[in-house]
């Protein structure tokens, strides 16, 4: 068995989610190859070659792959992937965008967002917003799978010494083009990789009040997240949303502030090790999943917490 892992990157830096995806590949067992498709992504290929457990890196460097457009990258992955037993990608917006297109080109069903590997052909994944866990078996010749990063501890980024091989294939479908992007800037840790996450909900009342959460987060070295209610109300940008339709996090500590705890929000954070809820409504559903609950006005509790922590 040989497994192809699609590297997640921005042409400059290898994203940490790749290490979790390689961890899933290690559990499946077999040779692990990593594909770096991009433009001017030499540093990423070098970083991928150092990942513990990786035996080969395929570097497809071409202008057509610069922005990971699925119309161009999927044919490349499908072509290379025919020789592999498994194709894995992180369940990031990129992985989710590209991999189903690859699966359809290979005429196989995909398994989305696995959280555990039972055997080389059997995997567990959450359905119904995490309210049920399905065990799925695949008899496809090539198993196409996206990996939920929080389900697997990352492998070491150093220690490997894989060879880097250039892939000449250039697929340019010519039906799509990149126009531009607007990325939110943040100095805090990335939400999906942070050890501590502080999230605010509708109870924050306005965007300005999030400064209390930022102060607490900076004290704890935490990332700041939000519920959909806070995003829809315009308090914070939508890439901060935690939940079924936003990001899935599983930090050591998740502090939910002014969040009621709707099913869709819980789907994004209920695998956190320790959950703290601060809410003035003691009937809020969030208290049913919280390890530590504090019924209090968040505007009193948060500054006090920041001072004591």
């Amino acid at each position, binding site marked *: 068995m040989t497994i192809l892992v699609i590297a997640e990157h921005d042409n400059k830096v290898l994203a940490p989610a790749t290490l979790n995806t390689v961890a899933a590949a290690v559990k499946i067992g077999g040779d692990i190859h990593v594909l770096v498709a991009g433009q001017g992504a030499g540093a990423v290929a070098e970083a991928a070659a150092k990942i513990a457990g990786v035996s080969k890196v395929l570097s497809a460097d071409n202008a057509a792959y610069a922005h990971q457009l699925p119309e161009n990258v999927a044919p490349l992955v499908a072509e290379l992937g025919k020789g592999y037993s498994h194709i894995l990608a992180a369940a990031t*917006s990129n992985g989710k965008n590209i991999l*189903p297109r690859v699966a359809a*080109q290979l005429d196989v069903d995909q398994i989305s967002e696995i959280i555990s590997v039972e055997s080389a052909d059997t995997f567990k994944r959450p359905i119904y917003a995490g309210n049920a866990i399905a065990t799925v078996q695949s*008899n496809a010749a090539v198993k196409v799978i996206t990996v939920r990063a929080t389900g697997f501890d990352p492998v070491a980024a150093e220690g490997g010494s894989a060879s880097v091989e250039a892939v000449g294939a250039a697929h340019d479908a010519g*039906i799509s083009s990149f*126009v*531009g992007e607007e990325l939110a800037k943040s100095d805090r840790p990335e939400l999906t990789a942070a050890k501590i996450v502080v999230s605010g909900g509708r109870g924050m009342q306005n965007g300005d009040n999030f400064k209390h959460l930022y102060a607490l987060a900076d004290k704890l070295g935490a990332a700041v997240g939000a519920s959909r209610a806070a995003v829809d109300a315009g308090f914070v940008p939508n890439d901060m949303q935690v939940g079924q339709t936003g990001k899935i996090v599983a930090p050591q500590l998740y502090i939910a502030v002014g969040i009621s705890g709707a099913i869709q929000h819980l789907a994004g954070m209920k695998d956190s090790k320790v959950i703290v809820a601060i809410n003035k409504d003691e009937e809020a559903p969030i208290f049913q999943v919280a*390890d530590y609950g504090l019924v209090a006005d968040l505007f009193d509790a948060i500054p006090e917490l920041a001072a004591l922590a």
Partner: protein
Amino acid sequence: MKILVAVKRVVDYNVKVRVKADNSGVDLANVKMSMNPFCEIAVEEAVRLKELSIKEGRVATEIVVVSIGPSTAQEQLRTALALGADRAILVESAEDLTSLAVAKLLKAVVDKEQPQLVILGKQAIDSDNNQTGQMLAALSGYGQGTFASKVEISGDNVAVTREVDGGAQTVSLKLPAIVTTDLRLNEPRYASLPNIMKAKKKPLEVLTPDALGVSTASTNKTVKVEAPAARSAGIKVKSVAELVEKLKNEAKVI
């Protein structure tokens, strides 16, 4: 220009589902069913594009809505008709189909209807797969604008602003193209009573996978479905000081 919208009948998003005792699946008997929330957004976007066309003399002229599923999915198609779709197609199948099977059936409908734009939701809240739109795009050879928060048609192209992990990205796709909707694309309208009455008279065609010549065989098998591990009950603390003490000494997370 014709717009095709795919909608799915799913368990209502407010229902807390329970796993069956024999672990064969979740219990959907006597549970409220609705149109998948992302599909509602897809229907709304199609209707807005058509309304915009009427106002600005552009070209979105017809909205065809399609669902693949049991005969009861006609309810969701009628809802879409009441919201502004012109006619409906049901591909009737009692089986639980995989995303690839659904994509193949949709491809057959696309071949038949020749729409310029196909809009789907980004994922269904039951299977949480997030695959069908991308698979349909692959099978039809069209460009895909997934997780769309903005859709603008100009001439032979559609510009799609997409919600990605770090923020937003805009791509331009040649028509025909596939778009999948994210939550912030729009706020779906409610159907008015007169429109619900009118929707009953709009055409609804029923097809079968056999009639479309599509095999729905699957390479995946669900072995079992279990309830997630329950979290042990937590405690309520009385003060911030007690909370900090517990986090430091008991949970050891700060």
